[in-house]
């Protein structure tokens, strides 16, 4: 490993001063702007999570009032869903890597890319304003008529914040689609693209097709609150369930916005650390598209107990079983890739193994929930909470961290402490399971979600869960320290510290502003590892 590389001009040194960052058009710098904002929101969302777990240590609702508790879990959900999970991998890693991986100099619309970050930040500020002004107590799902007619909290402010933030998603998705269609380097055919790109293309399709629907839904809620234009008001004959249809039409595909990029990262890490071509490349590529498409057809599984028609429920249930298939296919293909691969256990690979187990559990419990008869029993209990945290934290956050650890040397030109990285990956895995596995149990036993008090027989499970959360917090804090430390004192990283395949590894670490000194010409398939 070459540690004595001479410092050279790169995108980090190309212009100093706050203006060169705040007015940058470089997709790599914009990715870092997102890293800062997204990380800040993650910390805030985690603080709310901590308050939840603190309250739930005891059966009595004794830490905060129930109204306050409602606001805490609402803000936890809003911040984590809209300001962390949806942008994290696409806006940080996607922005940084998409042009590099396809051999382009930038995304198709660099100024729109910068605009997307400002829009994200402004949306976030509106949400923070709502928080400071007393918060929102409707749950991140904003069900009407409570949110539109009865809540006394800052619904309009938050709704404006999320609406504005939605444009960040739309603009990012639009940029990715155009870039991938129009700016691939010579020889980079569709089937030579890294699977990270296929995953982000599918994600971008969802962003473009789904986000506008939640945007208009929030407009309607805001209009009802501010202008008395009661679309969902039962007194006028409105149907609150209509809100749920419109809301979940986006919010279900939104969870695929959260997991597809993580699956893209998985493919890159599995290939790199087993030094093998991904088994069934085309199938994995198409499965990303299949998830994006079928993911739009299942939203009613969030509404099994809403008074939606039972026939619609059956249709949505069947479709929900079907949507699991492409995800399962990916897991089979990654496993087949690992088989007889040359595996090494760098930190990113530990996150890979964590993902496989946790995503498997999360995905399988999704099937439990897809069965209407089971869902009627466990809906709105901690079983559901555990299910989605297994996917979003056990899946997405694992790959977010795995990806950060994999590409950190490329992004910053520095290596971090490998030992600490491995340890924190294990700590996170342990902390995560201790936090969320008991929630499956206590949910199945009947503990409702969004309640700050519970019957005393559930206390053991809640204490275990809160203990796990403390360990998880330590696990998340560790990378913060050694990664930042690496920026100051880390070894200089070579162009390709992992010996991985991919165009991003064929330029310097960090890359120059224009990415490549000469436009690459692609002649090989992806992951062309030689045994």
């Amino acid at each position, binding site marked *: 490993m070459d540690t004595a590389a001479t410092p050279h001009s790169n995108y980090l040194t190309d212009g100093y001063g706050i203006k060169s960052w705040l007015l940058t058009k470089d997709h790599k710098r914009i990715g870092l702007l997102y890293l800062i904002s997204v990380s800040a929101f993650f910390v805030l969302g985690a603080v709310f999570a901590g308050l939840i777990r603190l309250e739930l240590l005891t059966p009595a609702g004794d830490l905060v009032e129930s109204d306050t508790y409602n606001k805490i879990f609402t803000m936890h959900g809003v911040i984590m869903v809209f300001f962390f999970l949806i942008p994290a991998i696409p806006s940080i890693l996607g922005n940084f890597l998409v042009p590099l991986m396809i051999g382009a100099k930038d995304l198709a619309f660099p100024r729109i890319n910068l605009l997307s970050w400002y829009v994200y930040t402004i949306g976030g500020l509106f949400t923070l304003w709502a928080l400071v002004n007393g918060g929102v107590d409707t749950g991140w799902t904003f069900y009407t008529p409570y949110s539109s007619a009865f809540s006394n909290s800052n619904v309009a402010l938050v709704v404006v914040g999320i609406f504005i933030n939605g444009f960040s998603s739309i603009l990012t998705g639009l940029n990715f689609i155009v870039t991938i269609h129009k700016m691939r380097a010579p020889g980079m055919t569709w089937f030579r693209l890294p699977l990270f790109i296929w995953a982000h293309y599918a994600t971008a399709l969802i962003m473009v097709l789904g986000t506008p629907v939640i945007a208009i839904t929030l407009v309607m809620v805001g209009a009802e609150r501010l202008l008395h234009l009661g679309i969902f008001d039962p007194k006028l004959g409105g*149907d609150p369930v209509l809100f749920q249809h419109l809301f979940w039409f986006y919010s279900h595909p939104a969870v695929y916005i959260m997991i597809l990029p993580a699956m893209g990262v998985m493919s890159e890490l599995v290939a790199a650390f087993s030094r093998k071509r991904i088994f069934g490349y085309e199938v994995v590529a198409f499965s990303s598209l299949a998830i994006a498409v079928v993911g739009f057809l299942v939203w009613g599984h969030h509404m099994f107990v809403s008074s939606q028609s039972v026939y619609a429920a059956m249709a949505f249930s069947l479709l929900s079983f079907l949507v699991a298939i492409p995800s399962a296919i990916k897991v089979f293909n990654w496993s087949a890739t690992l088989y007889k691969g040359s595996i090494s256990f760098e930190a990113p690979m530990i996150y890979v193994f964590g993902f496989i187990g946790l995503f498997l559990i999360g995905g399988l419990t999704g099937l439990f929930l897809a069965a209407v008869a089971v869902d009627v029993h466990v809906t709105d209990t901690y079983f559901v909470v555990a299910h989605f945290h297994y996917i979003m934290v056990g899946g997405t956050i694992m790959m977010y961290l795995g990806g950060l650890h994999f590409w950190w040397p490329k992004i910053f030109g520095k290596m971090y402490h490998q030992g600490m990285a491995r340890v924190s990956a294990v700590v996170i895995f342990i902390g995560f399971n201790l936090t969320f596995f008991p929630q499956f149990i206590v949910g199945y036993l009947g503990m409702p979600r969004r309640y700050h008090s519970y019957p005393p027989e559930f206390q053991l499970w809640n204490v275990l869960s809160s203990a796990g959360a403390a360990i998880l917090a330590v696990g998340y804090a560790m990378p913060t320290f050694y990664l930042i430390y690496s920026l100051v004192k880390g070894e200089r990283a070579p162009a390709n510290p992992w010996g991985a395949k991919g165009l991003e590894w064929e330029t310097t670490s960090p890359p120059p502003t224009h990415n490549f000194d000469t436009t690459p010409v692609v002649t090989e398939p992806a992951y062309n590892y030689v045994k």
Partner: protein
Amino acid sequence: MAHDMTAAAGANGEDMQGATHLVPVRVYLTIFTLLMILTATTVGVSFLDLGPFNTVVAIVIAVTKMMLVILYFMHVRYSTRLTWAVVAGGFFWLALLLLLTLGDYLTRGPGWLRFG
């Protein structure tokens, strides 16, 4: 008037944006006239009693007008298959939203939706 603008290089080899076909003015005027006629028609037909078909006719006319604008004013008739796919995809997704949700309301029993 109808010379082809699809070449990406100009007469002197200079870089040009190329792409869309130069549509003849008379095509635009014809489409405009059709749109005006269809507007008058949709207003006129609305004053006739066709029962439930009033709505059907109104929508068919609106869709026809939309297609004329999309194909000719927006040049989709002369565009790439990718553009076609994007336009079709947008409408297809809207159809998914409308039809699947309608599926719920249609099967709820009395109290929701009356046709005719």
